[in-house]
């Protein structure tokens, strides 16, 4: 099973997903992220999904759950770099990723997190 690395930059955790997402790797990411948030006390999470071409309802739901978990640690989640095709798929699946912020790219994502403080 492939693992998604979590980078800490300042008070932000940066997750760039570069692999084809399998259900197990997303669940592993969720656990790792919770551990990391507890350990570092970061106040923002950026998940970069520029390289993700295919999503299903499970992955869509896991992204929402990651957002909810982060909020329990008082951290805001921003999903950045979503492709148009992925956005259309999630919409057709009826998932609007409530509780998660979205931004066009990582730079704008960071602006959202920094503007929050």
């Amino acid at each position, binding site marked *: 099973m492939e693992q998604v690395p979590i980078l800490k930059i300042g008070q932000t955790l940066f997750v760039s997903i570069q692999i084809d997402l399998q259900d197990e790797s997303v669940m592993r990411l969720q656990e790792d992220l919770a551990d990391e948030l507890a350990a570092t006390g970061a106040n923002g999470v950026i998940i970069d999904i520029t390289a993700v071409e295919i999503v299903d309802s499970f992955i869509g739901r896991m992204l929402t759950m990651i957002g909810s978990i982060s909020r329990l640690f008082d951290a805001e989640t*921003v*999903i*950045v770099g*979503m*492709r*148009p095709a*992925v*956005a*259309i798929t*999630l*919409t*057709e699946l009826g998932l*609007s*990723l409530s509780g998660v*912020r*979205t*931004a*066009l*790219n990582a730079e*704008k*994502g960071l602006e959202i997190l920094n503007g929050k403080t």
Partner: protein
Amino acid sequence: MDVGGTSGRMADYLRDHQDKVVGRWSELVVAGVRGRTSLDEVRRELGDLYGLIIRVLSGADDHAEGELRASLDELSRSRARDGFSPSETALAVLSVKEAVYELVADAAEMVPEFLAFSRMVDDLGVRTFESYSATRERIISDQVTTMMELSTPVVRLWDGIIAVPLVGTLDSARTQLVMEKLLDTLVATGADHAVIDITGVSTVDTEVAQHLLKTVSAARLLGANCTISGIRPQVAQTIVSLGIDFGDIATKATLADALALALRQAGLKVVPA
């Protein structure tokens, strides 16, 4: 065309009675189209056609058949473009049989020739109909292309603010196209405000509203703020009476209001020069 005397005799017969047949033929055609073309015009058209038919029957030259086909195609193309009905177009050719039959009825010895001639005219009629419907198909497909082109412009209002003016009726196919184009433009230009202007959308029902909501939430997933503008009074009444809830999506009366909102959200301010 069968070789030998039959068609040759028919050609001679038709040539001898040219004025009478063309006159009667034109009358029949003009009566059929209820005065949408003048008798003189029809007479000229059919006179040419009649000449070609005689040339084909007499077998004098090889080009006659091609020319006849070409001028039939031309006739049915112009009829199709001018909005004549299929039967009016086909009858324009087929009624030559009636015109000739009225003459042949008095001359019993011409019956075999007339049967051969009648078969030929039937073929011509089928051909007319084929090119008529081909022309109509082409007109329709041209119009569909034009409509699709008309329907999906994405315009840049300001740095980071784009707008999609929607015109006409929204169906699934068009919404899909608009959505894809809007999202692609958002990614390509890095814009973070999008305005969907529905001034030109005449009716909004639950399905159209559903399509709009989908487009807005897809744009939001990319991280763009989406505003719907140009809701007309009747449309607003329909939306409310259908119980459609736009939730927390910002809606504005005009495109100008939506632009003002987007500018404010982008932290910009318009001041008098």
